């Protein structure tokens, strides 16, 4: 009798613990939505569409998200242009071409990169990469979108490698055997059979990497110069959504319009990463690679 009661209590406790994940997700949407909702009522959601982000001003404050969104987009696109060839190339190399011993050494070494805190990567960017970029392109400052993108690529690469590598490894051995038996070379098999079969997984890996890049805060904030301007040039300074929240939240009065506008930025960020994540997981699940 006592054990039956105990069994129930245990199950209930575990159930409650498992439910907290749902509660946290709902909490995140509620608390961000609440403040952003206040902003949408007064001063109104159309204020967010303006092209200027001037949150502190003696004349007129302006909370246009466009410069921040384009800033994040520019940095993200540049970062992915760098990430895809290196990340996918390395994952194919590690899973298909490297010798077994080489693979055993390379894998944990690249895992190390995933463990380096973003503020340390940002610091490295600040003292090493920014001066390099400044010198190499003859720019007035090294704090540009390109510098940020290079650091972000570094942070996305381990994610992309580890997930694409799993995808490439999950291609059934029989596919490769069939291709080789038909007389295809090792390289032909790799490019025409293995990689195409793993492609959905590789795409999902790139999407998850993109999610990581959009959400990264410290490294970008330290090296992109943080000028809230709309630009498409990789050599200009930009300000991302994440950096805006991190840099300005410390100084805003609680409950002010500026405070609430920052929560609006947070919602945009949350929805973007949420969308990417869900689609990537759907792809992985559909092709049974997750």
């Amino acid at each position, binding site marked *: 009798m006592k*054990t039956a009661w105990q*069994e129930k209590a245990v*199950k209930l*406790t*575990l*159930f409650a*613990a*498992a439910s*907290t*994940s*749902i509660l*946290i*997700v709902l*909490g*995140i949407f509620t*608390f*961000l939505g*609440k403040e952003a909702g206040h902003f949408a009522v007064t001063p109104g959601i159309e204020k967010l569409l303006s092209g200027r982000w001037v949150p502190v001003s003696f004349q007129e404050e302006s909370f246009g998200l466009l410069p921040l969104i384009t800033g994040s987009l520019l940095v993200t696109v540049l970062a992915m242009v760098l990430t895809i060839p290196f990340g996918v*190339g*390395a994952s194919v*190399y*590690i899973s298909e*071409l*490297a010798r077994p011993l080489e693979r055993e050494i*390379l894998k*944990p070494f*690249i*895992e*190390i*990169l995933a*463990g*380096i*805190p*973003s*503020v*340390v990567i940002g*610091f*490295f960017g*600040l003292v*090493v990469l920014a001066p390099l970029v400044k010198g190499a392109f003859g720019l007035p400052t090294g704090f540009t979108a390109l510098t940020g993108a290079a650091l972000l690529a*570094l942070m996305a*690469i381990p994610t992309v490698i580890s997930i694409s590598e799993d995808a490439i490894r999950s291609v059934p051995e029989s596919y490769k055997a069939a291709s080789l038996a038909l007389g295809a*070379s090792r*390289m032909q098999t790799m490019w025409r059979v293995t990689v195409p079969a793993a492609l959905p997984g590789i795409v999902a890996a790139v999407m998850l990497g993109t999610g990581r890049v959009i959400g*990264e*805060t*410290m490294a970008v904030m*330290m090296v992109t110069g943080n000028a809230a301007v709309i630009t498409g040039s990789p050599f200009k300074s930009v300000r991302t959504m*994440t950096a805006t929240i*991190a840099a300005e*939240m*410390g100084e805003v009065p*609680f409950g002010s319009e500026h405070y609430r506008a920052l929560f609006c930025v947070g919602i945009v*960020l*949350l929805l973007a*990463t*949420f969308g*990417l*994540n*869900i689609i990537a997981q759907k792809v992985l699940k559909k092709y049974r690679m997750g």
Partner: protein
Amino acid sequence: MRKARTQQAICWLMRAATYSIVLVIASIIFKIVWNGLPAISWEFLTARPRLSGSEGGILPAIVGTLVLVVGTIAVALPLGMCSAIYLSEYAKQGKFTRAIRLAILTLAGVPSIVFGLFGLGLFVIFLRFGASIIAGCLTLACMILPIIIVSSEEALRAVPQSLREGSLALGATKWQTIRKNVLPYSIPGMLTGSILGIGRAAGETAPILLTVAAFYLPRLPKSIFDQVMALPYHLYILATQHPDVEKVRPMQYGTALVLLTLVLGVNLAAILLRIRIRRRQKW
């Protein structure tokens, strides 16, 4: 013949891509270690900062980071392990289980700064904890929860079904089976996951920026409602906000080295533990 040469070229290109990543990692670590070592001294590690961080040591930041990590694990570990036990041993296929899994995946993808906003809104302001250790720990715990759940569940699933069936067949209840026959074999794997969570919690800056971290606070914390300094935030402040950035370079490198050593040391411990478990447990 031409084809063979192209293939060779592609192979070399990919090798170059891989090794250039390795080279960059190595140069980051080398740069931090090379410039950081001269800054490390007994005083640097055990003294309090003076003159807004220009002189003295980083003891409060080290203590702050350790306090945050311990508090975070104290919250996230039991919660994550219990969630994983539920998902692996009790949960049936259904709407609710799918919802939990979706929530975990979502949490894993939420940007750290958004966790910061959430922690600010819920713990700091709504629950009136203020910027405090407890607010920071709870925020970080939310962030590392998915890491702990996913790796714990993996560890539980690695225990063969026959161990459960044997125990159940002898008349043990479900919980007795889990406690006596499943958990003992999966605890090391679960711990590996939580160690990775520790590394993440120790290195993150954005969430603690909004919920706990103090710019400059030479005294040590007295209660869980105090603010603390933390290594990553201290490095950020020294490197970007300090009035004389160039002069305090050695302090920056020193702080970066201490942080890097802590985080990579923790990760290395997890990797070694994982290798040991794999070697010992061959079902």
